[in-house]
C-alpha cells in the first residue's frame, strides 16, 4: 500500500461492507459459540427477534419518532440562534470580543449535567428534552461558525470592497457564501453530537423515546433490546449523515468543481 494512493469506488464500498460483516461475525461467534454469557451480551439472532418484538408489539416506531423529533427540534432551535450569532462574531470583532470568552466557557459546561436543573425549570416534558439538545449544541455551533467566518480569505473581502461592496454587502455576499459549505459541515458534525445528548436526556425522567426503552430494558436484563436500540441510533445517524453529505454536494458543487 502506497500512502495517499486513491482506490476505486467499487473496492471502497466492498471494504466498507467487509468490516460490518467482520464485526457481526465476531459478535456472532462470541455469543452463539458460548464464549460470552447471554446475560451480559445477547447474540445477533436474539437481538433481531427482540427488535421485531419491539417494533410490532411495543410500538417502538413511536419511540423512534419521539427521539428523532427531539433531536431535530433542539438542533434546529440551536441552529437558528447559533448560526447568525457565529457569523456576527466572525465578522465583527467587537461582538467577538464581547461573546467569545463566555461562549468558550459555556461550551465546556456538560449538557447532561444540566438535566436536573432543567427538570426543575422546565419539568419533564418535551421542552426539557429540547433544552438539553439546545444547550449541548448551541455553543459549539456558535464558536465553530465564528472561527470559520474569521478565517475567510482576506483578499476576497478586499476584492469585494474594490468592486464597491458595502460592509453589509461583504457580510452577505462574501462572508456568508464563502463559508456556507463549512457551516453545513459544522452542522453535520454537531448533529451527530446531538444524538448522544438526546439519549442521556431520555435516560432520566422520560416516558418515551429510544433512551427510555434502553433504560427500561436494563431493568428487564433484555440486552438484545438494548443493543437493538443502539443499532437503530447508529442506522439513523448513518442515514442522516448520508443525506447531509449528498445535500452538501448538491448545494456546494463549486467546491468540487
Amino acid at each position, binding site marked *: 500500500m502506497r500512502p495517499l494512493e486513491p482506490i476505486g469506488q467499487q473496492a471502497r464500498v466492498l471494504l466498507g461492507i467487509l468490516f460490518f460483516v467482520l464485526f457481526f461475525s465476531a459478535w456472532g461467534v462470541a455469543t452463539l459459540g458460548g464464549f460470552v454469557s447471554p446475560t451480559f451480551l445477547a447474540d445477533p439472532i436474539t437481538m433481531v427477534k427482540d427488535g421485531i418484538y419491539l417494533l410490532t408489539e411495543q410500538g417502538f416506531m413511536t419511540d423512534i419518532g419521539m427521539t428523532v423529533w427531539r433531536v431535530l427540534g433542539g438542533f434546529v432551535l440551536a441552529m437558528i440562534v447559533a448560526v447568525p450569532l457565529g457569523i456576527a462574531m466572525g465578522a465583527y470583532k467587537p461582538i467577538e470580543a464581547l461573546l467569545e470568552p463566555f461562549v468558550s466557557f459555556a461550551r465546556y459546561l456538560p449538557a447532561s449535567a444540566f438535566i436536573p436543573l432543567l427538570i426543575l425549570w422546565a419539568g419533564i416534558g418535551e421542552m426539557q428534552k429540547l433544552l438539553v439538545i439546545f444547550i449541548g449544541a448551541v455553543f459549539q455551533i456558535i464558536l465553530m461558525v465564528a472561527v470559520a467566518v474569521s478565517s475567510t*480569505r482576506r*483578499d*476576497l473581502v*478586499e*476584492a*469585494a*470592497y*474594490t*468592486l*464597491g*461592496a*458595502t460592509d453589509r*454587502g461583504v457580510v452577505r*455576499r*462574501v462572508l456568508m*457564501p*464563502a463559508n*456556507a459549505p463549512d457551516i453545513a459541515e459544522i452542522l453535520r458534525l454537531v448533529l451527530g453530537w446531538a444524538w448522544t445528548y438526546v439519549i442521556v436526556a431520555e435516560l432520566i425522567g422520560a416516558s418515551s423515546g429510544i433512551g427510555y426503552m434502553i433504560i427500561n430494558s436494563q431493568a428487564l436484563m433484555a440486552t438484545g433490546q438494548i443493543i437493538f436500540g443502539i443499532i437503530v441510533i447508529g442506522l439513523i445517524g448513518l442515514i442522516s449523515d448520508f443525506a447531509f453529505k449528498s445535500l452538501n454536494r448538491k448545494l*456546494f*458543487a*463549486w*467546491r468540487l*468543481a
Partner: protein
Amino acid sequence: MSELIIKGVSRTFPGVHGGQPVQALQPTDLTIEKNDFVTILGPSGCGKSTLLRIIAGLDRPTTGTVTLEGKEIKGPGADRGMVFQSYTLFPWLTIRENVAFGLRERGVPAKEMWEIVDSYIDKVGLRGFQNHWPKQLSGGMQQRTAIARALANDPKIMLLDEPFGALDNQTRGLMQELLLGIWEREHKTVIFVTHDIEEAVFMASRVVTMTARPGRIKSITPVDLPHPRHYTIKASPEFSALRLKLTEEIRSEAIVAAGHG
C-alpha cells in the same frame, strides 16, 4: 486634466512584538493624468504595492493625501477597480456572476447588467466559459476574468498589482497584449505595479521606478513607443535602450534590497 494626485504620501508600519516601526514608503508625490498608463517598477519590498493599496483605499497613508478628481480617498470604492496578484475570483460564483458582482452591488437592472457582463467577457476572450466555476479555469483565464470584473464596473482608474506575476512567460506575454489592446481601445487610466522591466516598458506611457525600502520615487521615464504596440516591438532598438536604462536603475536598488535580506 490631472486625475489622480498623490501628495506627500508615506506609510510606516508599527513594529511587531515591540520591534522597530518599519517605514515602507517615504513621502511620495505623483500626479497621474487621465488616460495615462503608468507602470510602477521596483524591487520586491520597495513599497510599490503599499502605494497601490493606499490608492485603492485598502490601506491608510501615515501622512499625505490621495485625491481622485478632487475628492480625497478615504476608503475603497467602485471608482477604482483593482486586480490582485493572487486569484481573487469568488469561487462560489460562475465566471459570469463574478463579472456581474460590482454591477449587482450597485443595483443595475438585470437586462442591462448581463449585456455589460457579456460584452466584457467577449473582450477578454472568455465566451464559452461564462458558466464555469473559477476552479475550472487556468490561472491566465482567471486573471482575465478578474480584469473583466474590474472593467465591468466602469471605474475611473484601474489598479493592477502584479496581476501576471504568477503566470508562465508565454501566457504573461499574451495577457500584456490583451490588456494593452483594451487600454488602446477604451482609454482607461491605469496604474500597473510590476517587478518585470520588459512588462513595464511594453505597456506603459510612463515608467515610475522606485528605490529599495523605504521606497520613494527614483525616476520617471516616458515611453514614446507608438501605439498600437505589437509584441515584436520588444525587439526594437528603442525598446532595448529603454530596457537597458531601467535595468541599470533597478539593479542598484535590487542590490540594496537583497543586502537587507
